[in-house]
């Protein structure tokens, strides 16, 4: 490359400089691919996503190396505010030349960012949000949803638990759309597997911190499984109180948390979390691949080992980079849809999830695992928390395509 800048370029640059202003407008470099990790870094989802997501994304970039283009990773904290998430996403796509936005937990923010991505024809690879609408009602040809959604959680935890002997259920449900939806979906799978739902206690959300009366109702119902259709701090509180009330003593009742991550189990501690069942699509100790991946990243995030969101950030970034390399950087920068089409046309292959495919509607089909949390006495070391109870193969774990309600697939 000629290191001397042509004079005309310099002049044009000097003339344009005042126009650039202080808005930190990134120069559009044809040779640089930018990935923006947008998630909660200071609030309730700090550990389930947060900086570990960015670390896993950078790990993928590092392993990918240079294949004719540079890759930059930028991060931002959306503080779980949809308008903030949407405005950062817009600015990234419009001004900072970001080609893909990664992670984005919290369904409302995810849907807002997905709408921006659709409008700008840029890639949004969601690993953090639960809503199945991302590949359903709100689907778009430039969106990929990787790791989990409400349907898969309900099917795995609901259906598989019944098969493992948890035939009668009682729900404690956060009384808003997310909780209700989870309860509806899970009920359907429990009943389809031959189980019974004995009752449910919806509780006002947000603001409920005392779950004692609901727990007593659950206890007196005689159900074998207590299903928690809530998330975050509510799940943690209800589990703690259930243990204090002795619900799980002598194996009378087991708790199934509908949305929980290994990072939450770590926060609770095995003394409290033991016996819980939950679903994830990744666990560091599943096989040689997952162990190898975790060994590579754990020194970078020693207190927060990867959960399925983090693993998906790694695997998704890797697959995205492969697609861009296959397409050529120039074509890739032009169209998000082209990149995602390429991603869908190639089989995914990574240490975390193995070999899988991305379906037409943008959903990654990977196996789902029903885990049970180990007793403290069974745990041999740091983060040794899960035993695998049931594996749902990729073909069965997810919502069938004809039920997804994704408009562009039908067309």
């Amino acid at each position, binding site marked *: 490359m000629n290191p001397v800048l042509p004079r005309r370029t310099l002049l044009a640059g000097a003339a344009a400089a005042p*126009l650039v*202003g*202080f*808005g930190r407008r990134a120069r559009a470099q044809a040779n640089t691919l930018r990935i923006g990790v947008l998630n909660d*870094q*200071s609030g309730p989802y*700090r550990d389930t996503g*947060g*900086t570990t997501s960015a670390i896993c994304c950078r790990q993928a970039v590092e392993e990918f190396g240079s294949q004719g283009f540079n890759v930059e990773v*930028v*991060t*931002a*904290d*959306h*503080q*779980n*505010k*949809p*308008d*903030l998430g*949407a*405005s*950062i996403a*817009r*600015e990234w796509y*419009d*001004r900072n030349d970001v080609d893909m936005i990664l992670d984005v937990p919290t*369904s*409302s923010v995810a*849907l*807002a960012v997905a*709408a921006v991505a659709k409008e700008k024809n840029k890639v949004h690879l969601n690993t953090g949000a639960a*809503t199945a*609408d991302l590949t359903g009602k*709100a689907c778009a040809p430039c969106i990929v949803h990787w790791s989990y959604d409400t349907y898969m959680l309900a099917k795995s935890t609901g259906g598989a638990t019944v098969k493992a002997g948890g035939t009668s259920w009682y729900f404690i449900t956060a*009384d*808003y*759309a*997310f909780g209700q939806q989870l309860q509806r979906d899970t009920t359907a799978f429990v009943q389809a597997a031959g189980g019974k739902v004995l009752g449910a206690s919806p509780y*006002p*959300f947000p603001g409920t911190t005392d779950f004692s009366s609901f727990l007593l109702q659950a206890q007196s119902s005689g159900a074998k499984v207590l299903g928690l259709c809530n998330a975050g701090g509510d799940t943690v509180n209800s589990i703690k109180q259930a243990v204090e009330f002795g619900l799980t003593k002598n194996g009378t009742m087991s708790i199934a948390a509908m949305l929980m991550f290994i990072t939450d189990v770590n926060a609770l501690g095995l003394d409290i979390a033991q016996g819980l069942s939950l679903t994830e699509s990744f666990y560091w100790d599943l096989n040689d691949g997952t162990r190898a991946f975790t060994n590579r990243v754990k020194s970078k995030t020693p207190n927060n080992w990867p959960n399925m969101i983090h693993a998906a950030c790694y695997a998704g970034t890797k697959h995205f980079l492969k697609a861009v390399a296959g397409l050529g950087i120039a074509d890739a920068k032009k169209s998000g849809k082209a990149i995602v089409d390429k991603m869908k046309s190639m089989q995914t292959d990574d240490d975390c999830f193995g070999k899988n495919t991305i379906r037409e509607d943008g959903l990654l089909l990977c196996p789902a695992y029903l885990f049970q949390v180990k007793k403290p006495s069974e745990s041999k070391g740091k983060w040794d928390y899960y035993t695998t109870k049931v594996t749902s193969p990729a073909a069965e774990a997810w919502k069938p395509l004809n039920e997804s309600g994704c408009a562009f697939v039908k067309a």
Partner: protein
Amino acid sequence: MTGFLARQGFSRAQGIAFVLMVVLIAVAPFQLYPVFLMKVLCFALFACAFNLLIGYVGLLSFGHAAYFGFGSYVAAWTAKNWGLSAEVAILLGGLTGAGLGTAFGWLAIRRLGIYFSMITLALAQMAYFFALQAPFTGGEDGIQQVPRAPLFGTISMQSDLHTYWLVAGVFILFFLLIHRVVHSPFGQVLKAIRENEPRAISLGYRVDSYKLTAFILSCFVAGIAGGTKSLVFGIATLTDVNFQMSGEVVLMTLLGGLGTIFGPVMGALIVTGMEQYFAQLGAWVTVMQGVIFVACVLLFRRGIVGEIGAKLKIIL
């Protein structure tokens, strides 16, 4: 120009500041990101509406998010489902705010001080739970993918810059309205109520109806701000009705300067700017915000604009 501004009740200093602000609004989109600026303007309008109550009537409403949020829900819903044009949707948002404000205000103005604040907070929380449960708001997903409805049904709002001029127009219009109200005889009575309510009563003013009118007006403008914001971003979500939003608008007003006409605008710029441009700091963002707020409260007791005004011995 000067004659026009004087007739609107602008003092010389305020007139200069106003012209400066309009120039900045006109130049800013070519320097900064227009979507960010639109957000600032929406929040600035919201803070101005709030300031009308706290700054000029002395009523601390702790539930302004309800009017802002429902304004944005109604504007978003009507624009999406009825395909209304932008100005009608925004106006409906404002009317929703005013309607809600009439009901809530009628109850709340019967009490003073902290009790007034608590009643507004309680009513706003009711509105929040309604938004959480009602089917039309979409629960925690909110109303998504609201189209940017064309203005007057014809002028396309697809480009950010077009939308920006609309938002800037709405902002300046209602900013002038609030300024006009504050500097009218009606506004003088409001200030009298703020300074000494029993005296205003003894002078024969029906204080309650003045307060209620100001309250409704403030809620109307808050609804307008909410409606505008929902069309800019194409979403209306629970964040807008949450009590944290009520807190944020208090913060903006305090930071900029209570009872100054330009203070809330400055406050909105700072708070929104920090939120947007500190987002890259990750876990440090809330810490930095806290430090800056503490510093502002310690250094600028009257708010930033209030302090500048005091230095220059002018009222801004």
